[in-house]
């Protein structure tokens, strides 16, 4: 099978998945290209289901997926996809008695790096990239949540994947760690396709040139963060007092109220919308439906 990794992308069309009565995904279609795409949505929106389908861990009820031109329904092609995949599942568990190096060694074997020397080199490379060299002998149960998360990211990087799927990678990371995570992602060699999910809009604004908003199993927005913010243009205003006509209001750090709503009062002091404003507006609209 010919594989065009340079220009091909990841394509999903009409994906649907049910769990009992709940519809986790409802006719979801999207395209992922090289670079970072953010999947934004609240818990329960279907992000994890979508990512697990892209990672070939789950099968959709209907719809098709194409990863670098390969179809995961075919066993041989699914294997090829997995060879190019790096996956961080949500709430990854660890064998508690493993050490950091031992766990990475284990995952490297799962990624078919059978040569002991190459494995040690890959593990060393990934440890250096994620800044955990000094912790190679530490048992995982002794690591803090943030370090465990970094370890999870590290295992996804093993084998230099062409497709990196990260489910809530920034959960549990403090702001400094998030910054280093952004630096890490933007510096990855080989320019892989990266998709990460989050429910925090500022992660999107900071890292992702491309964003997809998923609400209640459906895609509600595709575009750049600037475009997402622009959807809320003219619908965000500030005031000294709380305004009940707004959909959402909160008091900012400067002690002024910030409002988001479809009908700002005449003469209201409009403010430049942020990515979060656009997301909140969309989310409210979807909830109202």
């Amino acid at each position, binding site marked *: 099978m010919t594989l065009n990794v340079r220009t091909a992308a990841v394509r999903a069309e009409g994906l649907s998945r049910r769990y009992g009565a709940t519809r986790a995904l409802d006719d979801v279609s999207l395209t992922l290209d090289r670079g970072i795409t953010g999947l934004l949505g609240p818990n329960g929106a279907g992000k994890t289901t979508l990512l*697990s389908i892209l*990672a*070939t*861990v*789950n*099968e959709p009820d209907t719809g098709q997926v194409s990863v670098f031109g390969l179809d995961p329904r075919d*066993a041989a092609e*699914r*294997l090829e996809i*997995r*060879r190019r*995949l790096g*996956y961080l*599942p949500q709430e*990854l*568990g*660890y*064998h*508690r*008695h*493993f*050490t*950091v*190096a*031992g*766990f990475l*060694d*284990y*995952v490297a*074997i*799962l*990624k*078919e790096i*059978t040569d*002991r*020397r190459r*494995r*040690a*080199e890959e*593990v*060393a490379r990934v*440890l*250096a990239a994620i800044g955990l*060299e000094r912790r*190679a*002998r530490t048992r995982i149960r002794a690591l803090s949540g943030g370090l465990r998360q970094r370890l999870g990211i590290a*295992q996804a990087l093993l084998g230099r994947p062409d497709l990196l799927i990260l489910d809530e990678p920034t959960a549990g990371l403090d702001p400094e760690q998030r910054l280093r995570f952004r630096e890490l992602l933007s510096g990855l060699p080989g320019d892989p396709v990266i998709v990460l999910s989050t429910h925090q809009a500022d992660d999107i604004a900071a890292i992702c040139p491309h964003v997809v908003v998923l609400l209640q199993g459906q895609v509600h927005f595709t575009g750049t963060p600037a475009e997402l913010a622009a959807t809320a243009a003219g619908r965000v205003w500030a005031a000294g007092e709380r305004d009940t006509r707004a959909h959402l209001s909160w008091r900012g750090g400067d002690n002024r109220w910030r409002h988001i709503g479809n009908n700002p009062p005449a003469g209201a002091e409009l403010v430049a919308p942020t990515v979060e404003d656009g997301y909140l507006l969309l989310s409210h609209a979807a909830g109202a439906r």
Partner: protein
Amino acid sequence: MTSSFPGPAGPVAGADGHAGEDLLAGYAAGTVDGVAVWSVEAHLTRCARCRAALSAHVDAERLAGNRSVLLVRAALPEGGRARRLLCRCGVPDHLLRLLVATPSLRRSWLLSVAGVLAVVAGEAAAVTHGWLGSGGHMVPPGMLDPGVLAPFLLVAPLLVLAGVAAAFLPMFDPAYRLAVAAPFSGVTLLLVRTVSALAAALVAVVAAAFVLPGPGWLPAALLLPSLALCAFALAAATVTDPRAAAVTAAALWALPVLLLAAAHVPLLIVQRNAQFACAAVLCASALVLLARHDRFDLGWTR
């Protein structure tokens, strides 16, 4: 002890008796040859200063690369005698490393299994030899009351099943989704784990069966039921939820054993007809597994 270095091609050594920079650079580059090299090497064995000076002429990136790989290899567990023995027998190293993640091969698990078997078998032996109170048994001490064997017959294959279940049930593998999303063959991973867990548990069970007072063929007679039980659980797991499959298998063994024990003929479960039945179950399960082995690659998602 230092030496003087006239040098092969003139005065390249320092007057203090150490190797000069040019000589070291030449040695590092491989341009110095002949007997002079031996002198340099003999000197280096003794002189830390020249050793340090020589390091400056070695590719720093290469040294750093080896250093980080060394520290990773040092951080990996070495593995016990059992692993080294298996390595010598030709088992590939990466397969052995996969076993580290199997809970049923950990010392704590194996010790618990051994403990349970020891208690059950020991109690049966003690009652038969009259060391313990006979607790209402009709048979005089020294003679074998088959009822005494019932607990062991119930427990032993279930322990084997438990070991195998721990090897393939997702709930025992915290990194299970990683294993599914990885290219390494799910079938191979499963085989490696279940076969190892099976072997370890069977060894324990057979060893305990020798302690048991009973017919001499008892240890061997336990093999087929244990194997059939595990095969059934695995095959059922390709059809339904894996946990349900394991529980069903356990029930399918426990029920007949308990019934036969109540009827005072517990040994029937390991005698000829039962052995044939177990063989049949084993073959049928093996066929199902062969036909549906791709389920292991997909993960138990349906």
